[in-house]
């Protein structure tokens, strides 16, 4: 089992290592919680507010626990031209949820910005796994696989 202390020791307590450390901790535990923030603050000798100031800015660092099933759909130009909004609508009706709702502990669906895979859109990321060329009809099969596990 990895601990926050162990992860922190991989980094030098210099300002340019703060963001990499936050990313690693967020990826390992799902998010940066208050306890971890205190440890990070003392390790880097910065106020705890500074830890959250930086952490809350970036998409790849989370400051609140994530849902059991997290889905992200790229809604940038190229993916939209190839039908990303239809995919979003399908997912919304499949789970009876709304895109952007952060209060459901089981499933969450959000729109994200370009992931640099514009040739293969629409792009859907489910629990970190990237799915390419998703369509409104193919999304059902993908979602069912996740529900089985």
């Amino acid at each position: 089992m990895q601990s926050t202390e162990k992860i922190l020791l991989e980094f030098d307590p210099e300002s340019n290592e703060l963001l990499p450390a936050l990313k690693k901790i967020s990826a390992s535990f799902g998010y940066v919680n208050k306890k971890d923030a205190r440890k990070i603050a003392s390790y880097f000798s910065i106020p705890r507010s500074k830890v959250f100031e930086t952490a809350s800015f970036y998409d790849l660092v989370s400051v609140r626990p994530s849902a059991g099933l997290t889905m992200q759909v790229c809604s940038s130009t190229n993916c939209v031209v190839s039908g990303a909004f239809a995919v979003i609508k399908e997912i919304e009706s499949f789970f009876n949820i709304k895109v952007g709702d952060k209060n459901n502990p089981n499933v969450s669906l959000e729109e994200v910005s370009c992931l640099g895979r514009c040739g293969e859109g629409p792009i859907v990321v489910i629990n970190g796994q990237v799915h390419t060329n998703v369509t409104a009809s193919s999304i059902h099969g993908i979602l069912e696989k996740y529900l089985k596990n």
Partner: protein
Amino acid sequence: MSDNIKIITSHWDKIDPLRIEDYVEVGGYEALKKFLDYMTPKEAVAEIKTAKLAGRGGAGFPTGEKLEMVASKRGRRYFICNLDESEPGTYKDRMIVDKSPHLLLEGVVISSLAIGAEEAYIYINGNYKKQLEILETAIASAKQYNFLGQHILHSEHNLEIKLFSGAGAYICGEETALINSIEGNRGEPKVRPPYPPQQGLFGKPTVINNAETISSIPWIILNGGKKYSQIGSSCSPGTKLYILSGSIENGGIFEAPTGLSIKDLIYNIGGGMQKGKDFWFAQIGGACGRLALEGELKTNLDFSRNCECPLGSGSILVVDKSVNIHDLLVSWAGFFARESCGKCVPCREGTFRLYEIMKRLRDGEISDRDKIAAKDILWTLENTTFCPFGKFAATAIRDSSEKLKVF
């Protein structure tokens, strides 16, 4: 005209990108050897200036001048390769890493040594995980060959390259925001001046160049700046990676000289429109780019200030008449609302309200008051925001209003 000249893509798919031996065999790192054996840093910078190489990230700032500003400074300096590519529709830098990572590294080494930096950063988009691994491997093998590290090829030059993976923020492609991000701060832009060449990373003089710009440098060193300056358009010469996408027959990445017209790109390189699709407009340079209608297809694209449609990142999205423009408007407005860093009010509130209005437009609930408000917001974004992000956010939506008359 040297139409078929390939500078960045010359080895793509011909060599194994992960094997440094392959790259060396086709003449890789020869430019570095030439630089170390026959040139002074000053001469190298002068060569890049002669080439009139312009920044390929989109702004088109003369690279040679930037390098010169920092080369003349004393003390610690930094070189940063900007690989935080997050413009929608743009994935050229990712492809450079995928296909020819050592070309990029060679460019980074030459640029860093030319300005006297002993430490360089490559700031890579946080979503590019595979590319991060490729670069890690490439850096390790370059070190084995002594193209990096202490006393590079027995010269007195030292260089260490650090990889810094971003954390998913569009604004970090802006150079001062990128610096903030490396320094462990929120990725918000800083006041300019001072510009990074005066006061950049950790307060030291810093050059930040786009990965594509850097990848052109080995060729310039080997073949001379004069030869480079004769390719493509006269004001911003050289070749450019174009990313063609949308309702086009052959989408993908192509290298071609600058100064081509949009028509050339769509019909000669891209193979024309897909069957049964009618051209409506093309967006040039990503989500922040201008829209070009049928009548503007003859415009030549380059980086000059007076170019109607600036080339930007080089992405060309072709939109046909079957695409729902309201979806696109919501996509643009949503993208900029999400990615606004929140530092200044006009942008934070403006992009957010614009997103709301665009959603109402899509749902058929737009009021006259909304339309007036949208115009006010566009003006505010264009004229009062802290950094160019506001202008980017307004461009496509203003063009939709004025050229396509959608609201």
